[in-house]
């Protein structure tokens, strides 16, 4: 009896073992690529809501100083969207609409005078009146403050006038079409002159602007609290009592907190978590295509620091455009995006997002993945295969994963990519000093394509980390920034893209989608094409079926 049991046991184990060894489970294929439709969220509207409550938002990175003039972090814009309104804003369709201004700017025929009306009868969070003089103070601060990051975004302004308490006039040396878009971003954030006078450079510690909420408290590296502003001109549309922005750098922590309900909104949800969160009936997913890009910057001339005249560099990538073209041809963007990002992101080959009004067939064109051609180009350039190249990457998990995938992809084309992980702040240092061969970094994107191109590729631009210089490119971009005709500008940017894809100073890889998830108990959370999560007019729904 025991003998037989023992034998059947052994047989069972043997069977299982051989089944395991043979591999009894067939390969599970990748999910097919799907079309993604933007879901930007909708305002509360007329729905019945519960007044009050504290909304907790999980932020994926810590904002820098809350000072519109000096800030350079995308995450600061999230917090500012609830406490610091701008002259202009975006609407759900991605159009620029007035916010603190009352109409779109009027531009003179020669393009040198830009004027727009601003609201009157409105107050800052500290109770002081908002008027054109206050707007002028802020604009001048953006232009003149030492360390201002806004100056280059505003163009060659010679003076700012406030002829009446309700109007502003900007005088330009040369026409600058991107100014409207710039005023729909941090350059358009208006600060309380009284607060500026008393705090000066310390404004960022206790910002005071016009907004549905006002700044309350900040615990460094942990949270930022804002509370309802009674002075807000549209206070009737504000439902929450307060918002807590909690800093949660790990995507899995944000996802877990969303599911447990400890956090009601979270940004930058990982593409690997979204599917599980979509299935959760208590959560809603918002998604919008980014206007920015992720790319690999090649150092072609940055020796003395970004912004300095470029000098020749003696590496195959820097010297020979064929080697760069080979690199660009050896990146299998579609496969990378479907594996690493679960098909949520899109391949990108140019700095202009396809959904931008300035996109064109020329800017959307993507050179095909051709490892054979890459090897051929390398052979023509007389380079050994595999050609070793070094790429510095921020050591965040997503970036490292993509870098490893990229490494595998370009190996087919004959490149031996070495990955050098580096902390984010060191990376910013490295890119400025030019001590890199290849660099993987992204850009959050601007509504106006000028914000995606001239600052990075214009000769001598402060953020031209690759040291690229092309008079042809400079000419096209300058021309585009002077024109106000969208179609004309699109055509120029299309030609500029062709130049970039020929010279390959930056090899664009993918474009992400902003993935934001919020609780079904909350309404009025919106994310527009600039990727900023707007919770200023959100509200809790009453506790019944929603």
């Amino acid at each position, binding site marked *: 009896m025991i003998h037989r049991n023992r034998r059947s046991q052994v047989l069972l184990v043997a069977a299982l073992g051989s089944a395991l060894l043979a591999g009894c489970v067939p390969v599970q294929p990748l999910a097919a690529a799907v079309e993604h439709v933007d879901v930007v969220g909708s305002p509360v509207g007329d729905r019945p809501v519960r007044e009050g409550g504290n909304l907790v938002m999980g932020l994926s990175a810590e904002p820098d*100083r809350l000072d519109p003039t*000096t800030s350079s972090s995308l995450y600061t814009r999230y917090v500012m969207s609830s406490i610091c309104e701008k002259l202009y804003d975006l609407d759900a369709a991605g159009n620029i609409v007035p916010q603190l201004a009352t109409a779109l700017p009027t531009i003179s025929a020669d393009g040198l005078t830009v004027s727009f009306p601003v609201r009157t009868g409105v107050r800052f969070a500290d109770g002081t009146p908002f008027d054109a003089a206050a707007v002028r103070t802020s604009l001048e601060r953006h232009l003149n403050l030492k360390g201002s990051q806004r100056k280059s975004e505003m163009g060659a302004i010679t003076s700012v006038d406030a002829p009446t308490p309700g109007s502003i006039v900007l005088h330009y040396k040369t026409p600058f079409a991107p100014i409207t878009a710039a005023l729909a971003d941090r350059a358009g954030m208006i600060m309380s002159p009284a607060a500026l006078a008393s705090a000066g450079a310390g404004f960022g510690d206790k910002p005071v602007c016009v907004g549905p909420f006002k700044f309350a408290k900040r615990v*460094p*590296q*942990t949270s930022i609290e804002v509370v309802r502003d009674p002075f807000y001109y549209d206070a009737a549309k504000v439902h929450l009592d307060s918002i807590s922005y*909690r800093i949660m750098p790990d995507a899995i*922590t944000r996802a877990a907190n969303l599911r447990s309900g400890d956090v009601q909104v979270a940004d930058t949800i990982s593409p690997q978590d979204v599917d599980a969160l979509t299935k959760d009936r208590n959560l809603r997913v918002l998604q919008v295509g980014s206007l920015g890009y992720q790319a690999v910057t090649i150092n072609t001339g940055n020796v003395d620091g970004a912004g300095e005249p470029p000098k020749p560099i003696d590496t195959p990538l820097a010297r020979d455009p064929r080697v760069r073209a080979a690199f660009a041809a050896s990146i299998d963007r579609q496969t990378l995006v479907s594996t690493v990002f679960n098909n949520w992101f899109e391949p990108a080959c140019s700095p202009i997002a396809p959904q931008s009004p300035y996109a064109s067939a020329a800017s959307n064109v993507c050179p095909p993945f051709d490892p054979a051609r890459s090897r051929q180009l390398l052979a023509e350039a007389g380079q050994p295969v595999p050609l070793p190249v070094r790429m510095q990457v921020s050591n965040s998990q997503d970036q490292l994963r993509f870098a490893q995938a990229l490494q595998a992809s370009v190996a087919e084309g004959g490149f031996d990519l070495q990955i050098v992980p580096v*902390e984010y702040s*060191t990376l910013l240092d490295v890119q400025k000093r030019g001590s890199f061969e290849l660099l993987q970094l992204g850009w959050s994107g601007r509504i106006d394509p000028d914000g995606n191109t001239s600052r990075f590729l214009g000769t001598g631009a402060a953020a031209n980390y690759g040291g690229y210089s092309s008079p042809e490119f400079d000419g096209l971009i300058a021309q585009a920034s002077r024109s106000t005709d969208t179609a004309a500008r699109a055509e120029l940017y299309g030609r500029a893209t062709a130049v970039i894809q020929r010279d390959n100073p930056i090899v664009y890889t993918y474009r992400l989608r902003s993935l934001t998830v919020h609780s079904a108990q909350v309404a009025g959370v919106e994310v527009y094409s600039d990727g900023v999560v707007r919770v200023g007019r959100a509200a809790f729904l009453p506790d019944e079926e929603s």
Partner: protein
Amino acid sequence: MARYLIDRLWQSALTLVLASIVVFLGVRALPGDPALAMAGEEADPATLAAVRAQLGLDEPLPVQYLQFVGKALGGDLGRSTRTGTPVIDMIGATLPVTVQLAVYAMLIAVLAGMAGGVLAAVYRGRWPEWLANGFSLTALSVPTFWLGILAVVYLAVQLGWFPASGYVSPLENPLRAIYYLTLPAAILGLSHAAVVQRQTRSSMVGALTADYVRTARAKGLGRATVVFRYGLRNSLIVVTTVIGLQLGGLIAGAVVTERIFTLPGIGKLTLDSVFTRDYPVIQAVVLVITASYILINLLVDVLYTLVDPRIRVSGRAS
């Protein structure tokens, strides 16, 4: 005993001074220019020179060190280059959180560990010992962050027994504070509980089989009395040593736990400040952590003298 304590006191002071020198030199060895970090990317040479003078970077190293010490003793630990907040305020806000977490974790570790150790020793050879040993071995073989993530996913998200993140100050609401801190403290304390359990068990076993205990039992003392009066007393010595030695792992665990549960503690501050190259913060935080370690080691030694009669009598550590 007084002699021993005075010895330990000046030894700790000396260690503190040496540690501060190491921290000072270590921060100077970090790549990158602190003046540049502070002045900002666009700064011109004149501003840079001014900032360097302000930070005292042109002075010879020993002078810089003395300036650093002088300011530190006066409570000025500099300002964060990233947010401009005085570092002393940042530490004042974050240190209490970590202390609460660490104390709570150690409490759980000591209570759970000793209970487990006593159980394992008293029921030696039977199933409670196997269970206790099994738990402790598992706790020592799995990384804390993995347990933490699993705890968040299963206990917080799926079961909803605990919050997944956040911190409430005990000054606001003591009960909620404890509730929010329980899961992180349990995760942090788990591996230390295992160490305490193993040490307690082995010292209890040693005590229980020692001759003097056999004599006590022969004289008619009850089993419980023997266990608690002799066994536990000896274990306290061992546990105290263990707590002292475990502190190193506690700060590493605290960094990870604070990150997973989003607790605004000093561990998180340390890590973030290194990644953002915030030199004044790095310097101050490392100094505070090392000073705390030295202090705690001193306290442990004091505790030792109270618990280990051999030291009291001979005046030296054995």
